[in-house]
């Protein structure tokens, strides 16, 4: 299992700090073997990596990539949904609206943010922030990491489907640049509801899919344990999707996962976002909206 491998790698690296001579060499050999295994992951292993609890979370991206973040809470109708974080910040001195799914690093945090599974209020908050970004001419940068929209009673009572649909419709004609980065799990409409963008980037071990692999396996083969087959069949890795030409770029991660070298990750991401913004900000709003429409219009055209 991928988790055990990463844990062993971390233990070895910590042991290496005090080890000497033959013991150090032995540890180094084992470390190299692990790194080798971790450098060539199957789709299922990538999915597990995308869910790895210590992977960077949205608050870390916000801290590392932006300054002066001002969090905005609430949908102005019903409640504050903590499974989506959003607000205004500066990117290299330029105001932007930042938002994304919020997952926790442990069980308490995850209970507070509902494991990154928003209800309609979360999507409506996101929409409120995006419309405000449009009003003030701020680009929108969204970070996607969710197992999906929350399938609960209240979410249905308050129109989960309508909230997602509304975001898709509004994002498609937002008159400011939208950049979306899938950092971990990009699962189903719950992910897409923050992701209709001019540029779609994915981290090397992120996945993006119409359904979770477990959901696919249990619906199609009545067996959630066939996750491995579903991961293969769904072609959900960043590499698959770049190959299809349906995403715009892949942000490399350290061997063993994004959490192993966050500095390098953030530096690379900073360059990617800056580049995308440069390219998009030169376009007038009509061109931006027309090109975004065309981007999605061609997906699936036989």
């Amino acid at each position: 299992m991928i988790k055990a491998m990463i844990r062993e790698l971390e233990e070895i690296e910590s042991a290496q700090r005090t080890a000497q001579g033959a013991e150090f060499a032995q540890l180094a050999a084992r470390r190299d073997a692990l790194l080798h295994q971790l450098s060539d992951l199957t789709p299922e292993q990538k999915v597990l990596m995308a869910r790895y609890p210590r992977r960077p979370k949205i608050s870390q991206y916000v801290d590392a990539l932006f300054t002066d973040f001002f969090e905005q809470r609430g949908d102005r109708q019903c409640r504050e949904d903590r499974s989506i974080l959003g607000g205004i910040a500066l990117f290299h001195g330029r105001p932007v609206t930042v938002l994304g799914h919020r997952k926790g690093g442990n069980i308490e945090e995850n209970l507070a943010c509902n494991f990154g599974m928003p209800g309609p209020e979360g999507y409506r908050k996101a929409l409120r922030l995006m419309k405000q970004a449009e009003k003030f001419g701020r680009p929108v940068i969204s970070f996607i990491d969710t197992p999906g929209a929350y399938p609960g009673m209240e979410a249905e009572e308050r129109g989960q489907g309508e909230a997602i649909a509304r975001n898709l419709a509004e994002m498609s004609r937002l008159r400011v640049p939208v950049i979306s980065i899938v950092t971990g799990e990009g699962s189903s409409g719950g992910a897409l509801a923050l992701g209709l963008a001019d540029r779609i980037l994915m981290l090397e071990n992120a996945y993006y899919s119409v359904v979770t692999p477990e959901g696919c396996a249990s619906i199609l083969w009545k067996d959630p344990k066939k996750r491995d087959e579903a991961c293969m069949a769904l072609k959900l890795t960043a590499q698959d999707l770049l190959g299809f030409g349906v995403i715009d770029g892949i942000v490399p991660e350290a061997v063993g996962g994004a959490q192993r070298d966050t500095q390098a990750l953030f530096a690379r991401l900073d360059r990617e976002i800056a580049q995308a913004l440069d390219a998009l900000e030169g376009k007038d709003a009509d061109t931006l909206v027309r090109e975004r429409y065309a981007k999605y219009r061609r997906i699936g055209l036989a």
Partner: protein
Amino acid sequence: MTVTCPACGRETAQAVWHAHLCVCPACGSHQPIAARARLTALCDEGTLAEMNADLVGGDPLDFPGYAKKLAAQREKTGMQEAVMTATGRIDGHPAVLAVLDAQFFMGSMGTGAGEKITRAIEYARDAQLPLIMFSASGGARMQEGFFSLMQMAKTSAAVADFSDKGGLYISVLTHPTTGGVTASFASLGDIMLAEPNALIGFAGPRVIEQTIGQRLPEGFQRSEFQQEHGFIDQIVPRAQMRTVLSRLLRLHEGGVKRT
């Protein structure tokens, strides 16, 4: 030849059943009706003209078993895709119509259905015609993975663009409308209608029950529930659908979009 009503178990002569548009004459339950039968009943005689009849989606992921399953669905239903699109007149009012048919692959939206729906919306936009779409769908078609997920974005963007240009879109939700179809074009109508007792929601009832660990109350996510919670303008029995649509089309005639 008779039809047995799945709701009340009573038998009805096939001709009577179809004359009632697959609504049980005994108990009034609305049973699935084929897309073509629905359109034929709805449109003025001789005005129905199907669009993009031969357009079909592909197998973009080369998904195991999908091509075979698709072929079997086509064989079984005589349909090429889960949606039929057309132009026609209702009481003399011209409109573009799209009807999802849950009998084909559970009405799921893959690239074929997404493309047909988008073309219908764009046709309505360019011809400046009202758009009426009937949904019945289990959601996105899993076997087309990311590509089917993106049909939600594509169809929603098309509706938004159509709306910006002043087009009238009437969305009619029929049993069942769930998943990615609910979370895209089906929820974006200027006017939202539903047939009685249709299951309408994003998550399916079984998934919700598994998540919350309890049974859902009677009527949860049904049309009446959706109307109660503010997502439906009116519930319209199938027998009255033509009259109501005709009235809505008439009410929107002569409107001018302010720009």
